[in-house]
Structure formats: C-alpha cells, structure tokens
C-alpha cells in the first residue's frame, strides 16, 4: 500500500456516497473542523456529490485565518523595522496586515523567507550567527511538536539568535466556541485527523457528552472523508452520540506520547485571541517562562498599536460556519487570492480560497 492513491479511488468513493444517500433520511448539518478537510471536500467535488440531506459546514481549523491581525503587524514590524530574518510558512505571506502583508514587507526590502519547517529556520540561524532569526510559529496542535523541537534544538545548539513568534491554537476550545454560539446549528463534527495524531482522542469524549453530538475523527483523502461522513450520518440517524475514529491507520487513541511530551515541556496552555472569533479562554499555547529567551514577543519588546479589523470582511462568520464564503458580497469581487481582504481567501486551508480556486464547483452546491 502507498496510503494515498488507494484513498483516492473513485469507485470506493462512489460506493460510500451511495451508502450515505441510503442512510440519510433527514437533513443533517455536519461541520468539518479542519481547513485541510474543507479543501479536500471542495477540490475533489465531494460537496456536489453528497445528497441534499447532508450539508457540510466549514470550520475554524485554518491556523493562518485565525492568527490575529495584531500578530501579523508584529511580524511585519520585526521584518521591516527590527531587521530580523523573518521566516514563515508560505500561506502567511499574503495575509493583509493593517500596514502591510509580509509579502509587501519583503518587496520593501525586508528579509522575509518562506520555509517548509521551523527546523530549516534554525538552520538559517546557525548559518547566520550575526543575524536575529524569527520563525512565525502559527498552527494547531499538529504543528506544535515541530515548533517545540526547533526551540529545544536551538537550546541544545546554543543558538541564541533564534526565537519564535507564537500563534498556537487548539481545536477542542474552538469546538466549544462554535457550539456555544447561539447562531450555531451544527449537529455533528468531523474532528481533525492530524491534530488527533498528536493529541489522541480523549479530549473529545467530554465534548460528545456535554453537547450530545457525534464526533468522528477523520482523515483527509476523499475515501476518508466520505467514510467519516457516513459514520457520522449513521450515528445521527440512530439518535446516537459517540466518539469514533475513522482515521485509525494514523490516529492512536493516546496520540503520539513523544510529541505530547515535547509540547508539554516547551509550551503552556494560555488564553488566545482568534481572528474573527475573539478571545477564547485556554485555547492556545504560549512558551513556558523557562524558554522566554526564545520568545520573539519578549526578546524584541514589541509594542505597536492595535489596528481595527476590516469591516468588509465576514471572515468571522465564515470561520464559525454561519456563512458560506460565496455568501460574502465581496467574494471574488473586491476579495480575491491576489488581493485578499481577509485571511480565509489566502490560506491553502481557508474556506474562501477553496471556493475561489474551485469556483466552478460552487454553482451546483445547495446551500
């Protein structure tokens, strides 16, 4: 097995879709939490192939989208005014800040570099001991071990010129925020498979009980998604609410103990501001005090003004699953991936970008 092509088999997907059609006798609204799943659903045309009874709503699981404007401004400030080598995932570059995006900062002469891994940023720091290197560490639980490792490696290598600008968020508090919203109409969740690869599934049991909703840990390939949806629909139809794991080839119930250990060592849980959603208590990671030397926020004593959000962008409503991307009056007009008003139009995990790139798919989607 190659664990990829087999899960893209159109015949298997068709059989699952047929079974979903048979199983869903009433309308159901299911949220896929992760933006990677949103993209896979849209890109592979699954949204159009699902029966009208199954309505998928796209969740807040796009790290770039929920990174606060203020933090982007901080990154731009570090790159432009403090002269650091600012390293970031490619997705982050085009997200508009209040002054500039990182891409515009780069065009204005700042040393902004696109990397695939924080470990590469540390390599740059070790190659340029005379320069300060900052990694813009955005992400959910999946990315936390890599960021934690980069800090531990930096400590081991004595690289004092390396630090991270953290914007780490967590999935379970986001599910709570979605369910606590009075406008929410979500009846079940597909939980993000790769987050659970790290954290395990234990955190979701209490949510299943409290909100009496099915949660199915699901993978990202087309066959994974349709199987996850079928498992969810079967629970809903029977009036059940259980925690199930569709993605068992990767997700162990206990998660990855080594990864959890390094996260625990480097990060502590803290309150976090989510762009478009607001402050969510205990919903993110912050570097522990013993790693303060690697915290770009403290190291550079950044003190810049908080800029207001654009009032034209409805990203918050899209992230909470209340509006669909194409229900935004600016969608595809004033807001495109080339000139985005908000982050969901930029990120490879943003719902707006998914709808824009695969826009011929939208016409047929029932909303």
């Amino acid at each position, binding site marked *: 097995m190659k664990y990829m092509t087999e899960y893209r088999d159109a015949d298997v997907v068709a059989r699952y879709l047929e079974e979903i059609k048979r199983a869903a006798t009433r309308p159901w609204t299911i949220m896929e939490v992760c933006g990677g799943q949103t993209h896979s659903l849209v890109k592979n045309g699954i949204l159009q192939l699902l029966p009208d009874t199954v309505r998928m709503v796209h969740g807040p699981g796009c790290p770039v989208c929920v990174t606060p404007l203020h933090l982007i401004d901080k990154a731009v400030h570090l790159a432009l005014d403090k002269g650091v080598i600012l390293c970031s*995932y490619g997705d982050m570059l085009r997200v508009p800040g209040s002054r500039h995006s990182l891409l515009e900062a780069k065009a204005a002469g700042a040393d902004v570099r696109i990397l695939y891994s924080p470990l590469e940023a540390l390599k740059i720091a070790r190659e340029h001991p005379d320069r300060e290197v900052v990694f813009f560490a955005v992400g959910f639980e999946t990315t936390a071990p890599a960021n934690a490792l980069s800090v531990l490696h930096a400590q081991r290598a004595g690289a004092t010129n390396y630090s991270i600008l953290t914007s780490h968020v967590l999935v379970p508090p986001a599910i709570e925020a979605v369910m606590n919203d009075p406008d929410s109409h979500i009846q079940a969740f597909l939980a993000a498979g790769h987050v659970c690869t790290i954290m395990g599934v234990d955190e979701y049991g209490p949510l299943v009980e409290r909100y009496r909703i099915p949660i199915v840990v699901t993978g990202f390939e087309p066959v994974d998604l349709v199987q996850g949806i079928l498992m969810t629909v079967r629970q809903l139809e029977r009036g059940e609410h259980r925690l199930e794991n569709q993605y068992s080839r990767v997700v162990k119930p206990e998660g990855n103990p080594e990864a959890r250990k390094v996260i625990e060592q480097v990060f502590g849980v803290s309150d976090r501001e989510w762009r478009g959603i607001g402050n969510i208590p205990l919903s993110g990671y912050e570097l522990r005090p013993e790693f303060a030397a690697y915290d770009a926020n403290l190291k550079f004593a950044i003190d810049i003004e908080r800029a207001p959000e654009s009032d034209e962008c409805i990203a918050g409503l899209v992230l909470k699953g209340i509006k669909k991307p194409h229900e935004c009056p600016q969608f595809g007009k004033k807001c495109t991936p080339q000139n985005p008003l908000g982050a969901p139009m930029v990120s490879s995990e943003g719902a707006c970008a998914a709808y824009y790139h695969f826009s011929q798919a939208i016409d047929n989607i029932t909303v």
Partner: protein
Amino acid sequence: MEMGAMRGRPRKKCQRQAFVWLWGAIQQRLLFHLQYEELMCLAIPGKIQSIEHQYDGLVRMAKVQFGSIVKEASLEMVPHAKSGDYVLVHVGVAISVVDEAEAQKTFEYLSQIGEIDELIEHTQL
C-alpha cells in the same frame, strides 16, 4: 536572421507560441502542486528510504520519499520507525507511522456495516 532558420529548422510563430503556452501550463501545474500538495499545512505519508543521525548523533533524521520527491524529516517523534516504514510527515517532522492493518479497515467497512444492518434487521424480526 531568425534563430530557427539559423539552426536550419524554421519554426513557425504559432508553434513557438504553442510551446510557450505548454511550458507555462506545466509550470502552473507544478506551482499548483507545490502549493497544494507540498507546502500545505497538512501531513502526507511517505516511505523512509534511509536514516542518519545529526546534532552529534542525538537526532534521528530520515530521507523520506513522497512519490518522486525526497525530503528530509526528523524521526524524533517516532522512535520506533525503521527504513521502509510509511510515516506521516508534517512540517519536517514525522508524527506517526502508518498502520497497515488499520489502513485495510476503511475498505472493509462497507461490507461490515452491511452485515451489521442485516443482523439488526434479523433481530428486529
């Protein structure tokens, strides 16, 4: 004199344009793949080709093959992973070894639920 004529193979303007268009399309496709398959904040499965130690022997690093692309990944989070295993790699770190027995279950699920439904129907009768 035109370049094509110098080489003794005159190339028509439309042929050149077609070539430029095709090359552009290939590049677009490559960029698309880079953006959507490689750089995405997702984790993808790849096969461990070889393992070596870095940072004075403290860190296990692997060459991992994703289709025709080979990338380096840290194996610190998967201490039992060995050459030939499929690992899920996210931003340069392997986070899980793919379990072959579990992987098979997805393809057996449909026939299983068929049997379960039949069983339920029979008990109800």
